[in-house]
């Protein structure tokens, strides 16, 4: 009998097949993690295993990739009046500039999966990038001659995309304001007042009027199987839920149990829309839900992926617990106590230095005084005051539910947050002072920002021009 002699290349085939099987399984059935070129940036890591979100087709070309970027980011850029939109660079008179820096494509400056060179805002290009097109800026603005090109976008003066709060007319109008105003409060929220005004005929519901009897009976029967103790426990739990609800804006606006729950004999109270909480809330709070899925709390849900969990978080989050992020992570749906949503809900997960220092800040002291009714409403500053700001449009004041909206760049906080209480110069100094931010604003801002020295020169020059 001939013995099959195992040769070296046989091993080769076996090893190759094995590797292919592992890779194939990981790509088609597994989590694709073996195919990640490098960790995704903090903006994208939550969705990095959903490769198709960005790589529309395998080996897709730059234009398809660009479409993917724009699919998620175009609206925000447009709303911020992007200073360098792609459409500006399609005119052939800019063709030469594009050979230096192809500003038509996001990936020119934002390369993904390159953690070793990724900086703030996911920028991967050398920090003096403005040089490529604005090399001779000192000719038009001699005042800028002493500045290095790597300081344009890191000084708090300019941003590549969003300068919506850094334009001269605005800064000049507010120049010279005091550091902290005497009358310093946030605008009161208007949603409930406006709703009640519009719906005068709707009567608030009392605790006896709840329609959740069926929910509770099915639960009590199926849960306690004759054990009296747990029945009384259950009763007190039910009573507490009912009384929370009766004091909440939901009862005030006649939103009863059945508006959110269905009673199809589930072992635990079950929500409508197949128990999809975001959809339940969104059926009345659509604007808030749409904003929520744009921020890091909700971006996974926005793409139809499983909910984000604190266990997967990267930035200063307590990852020992596995809390899922949806509406009720911050809002207790029965009590709807926004004072809890404004501080404790955040601090339950966020444990970075800035968050940990909040409770020793003046902002928190003011909040405690407001809670104790020693100060008028709106005097305190909570996590939500800055990160879920009250935005005034005409007579309405609504809470922005995308908590990342005003962080990129943080100068977006000027008008809607800081300048409710502080002058523009003080605010801008504080927002550019990273050490002070980490201390959660305990202390004074480092005020060697050049912005207002330059603004003073410009104010003088404007006056001269006008008097000519």
């Amino acid at each position: 009998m001939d013995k099959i002699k195992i040769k070296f290349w046989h091993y080769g085939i076996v090893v190759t097949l094995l590797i292919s099987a592992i890779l194939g399984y990981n790509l088609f059935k597994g989590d694709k993690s073996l195919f990640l070129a490098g960790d995704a940036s903090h903006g994208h890591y939550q969705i990095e295993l959903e490769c198709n979100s960005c790589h529309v087709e395998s080996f897709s070309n730059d234009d398809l990739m660009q479409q993917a970027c724009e699919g998620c980011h175009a609206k925000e850029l447009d709303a911020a009046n992007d200073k360098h939109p792609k459409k500006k660079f399609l005119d052939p008179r800019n063709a030469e500039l594009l050979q230096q820096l192809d500003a038509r494509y996001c990936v020119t400056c934002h390369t993904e999966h390159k953690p070793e060179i990724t900086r703030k805002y996911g920028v991967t290009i050398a920090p003096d990038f403005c040089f490529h097109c604005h090399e001779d800026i000192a000719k038009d603005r001699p005042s800028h001659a002493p500045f290095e090109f790597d300081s344009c976008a890191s000084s708090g003066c300019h941003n590549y995309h969003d300068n919506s709060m850094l334009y001269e007319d605005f800064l000049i109008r507010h120049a010279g304001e005091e550091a902290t105003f005497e009358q310093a409060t946030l605008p009161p929220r208007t949603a409930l007042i406006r709703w009640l005004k519009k719906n005068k005929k709707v009567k608030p519901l009392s605790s006896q009027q709840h329609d959740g009897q069926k929910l509770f009976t099915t639960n009590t029967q199926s849960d306690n199987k004759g054990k009296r103790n747990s029945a009384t426990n259950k009763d007190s739990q039910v009573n507490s839920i009912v009384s929370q609800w009766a004091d909440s804006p939901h009862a005030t606006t006649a939103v009863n149990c059945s508006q959110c729950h269905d009673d199809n004999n589930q072992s635990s109270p079950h929500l409508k829309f197949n128990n999809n909480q975001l959809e339940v809330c969104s059926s009345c709070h659509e604007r808030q839900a749409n904003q929520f899925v744009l921020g890091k709390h909700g971006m996974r849900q926005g793409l139809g992926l499983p909910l984000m969990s604190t266990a997967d978080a990267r930035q200063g989050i307590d990852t020992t617990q596995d809390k899922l992020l949806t509406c009720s992570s911050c809002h207790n749906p029965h009590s709807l106590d926004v004072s809890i949503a404004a501080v404790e809900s955040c601090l339950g997960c966020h444990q970075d230095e800035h968050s940990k220092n909040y409770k020793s800040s003046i902002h928190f002291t003011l909040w405690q005084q407001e809670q104790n009714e020693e100060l008028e409403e709106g005097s305190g500053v909570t996590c939500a005051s800055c990160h879920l700001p009250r935005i005034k449009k005409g007579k309405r004041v609504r809470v922005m539910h995308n908590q990342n909206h005003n962080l990129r760049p943080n100068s977006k906080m000027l008008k809607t947050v800081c300048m409710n209480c502080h002058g523009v110069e003080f605010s801008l100094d504080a927002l550019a002072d990273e050490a002070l931010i980490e201390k959660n604003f305990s202390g004074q801002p480092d005020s060697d920002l050049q912005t207002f020295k330059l603004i003073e020169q410009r104010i003088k020059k404007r006056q001269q021009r006008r008097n000519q």
Partner: protein
Amino acid sequence: MTIGKLIKPTLVLAASSLISGAAIASGITPQKMADAIFSVIESDRTVYTRNVVDRLQNKEEVLDASEHWKEESALPLPAQMLRMGSERVNEKDSGFTYSLLSLWAINKQNKPKTPLEEKALKIIGKDPSKNFYGEETLAGKKYFTAVYPDVAVSEACVKCHNKHIDSPRTDFKLNDVMGGIAIRIPLED
């Protein structure tokens, strides 16, 4: 820069020059096409300046025009209106591009960038009765470029530019040439 990035715009430009090539074959020269486009741009610019900006800002005094129209809930300036239109045209790969330029630009992006732009602005500045027509090559691609004088048709033009902090020139008078509108049409090689 990858090949993909180079090929796409080249194809687009080739396609659009085919369009203008077809126009030439049927008797419409690039110059005629540019003249026609200019008359639309110029009419829209005048209508917007007179019937929107002038009326709301100066006559009815209900709404100002401001460079920061978006942030200040104001009307865009006529020059910004023109640029927004031209950027939309860019996005649609329309087979031509246009821009508002000046030797004395408030916005430095509106300064001449090519030798032809510079030459054209100087010539129409001296004699606004004639338009400038020429050809130029940008990034390896040939263009027919027409430049039309943009004249200070009202006191508002003169006043605003002369008083603007970033205007390099402060002695504009009524009917002076303040700049030019450049229209570019890609040509077949």
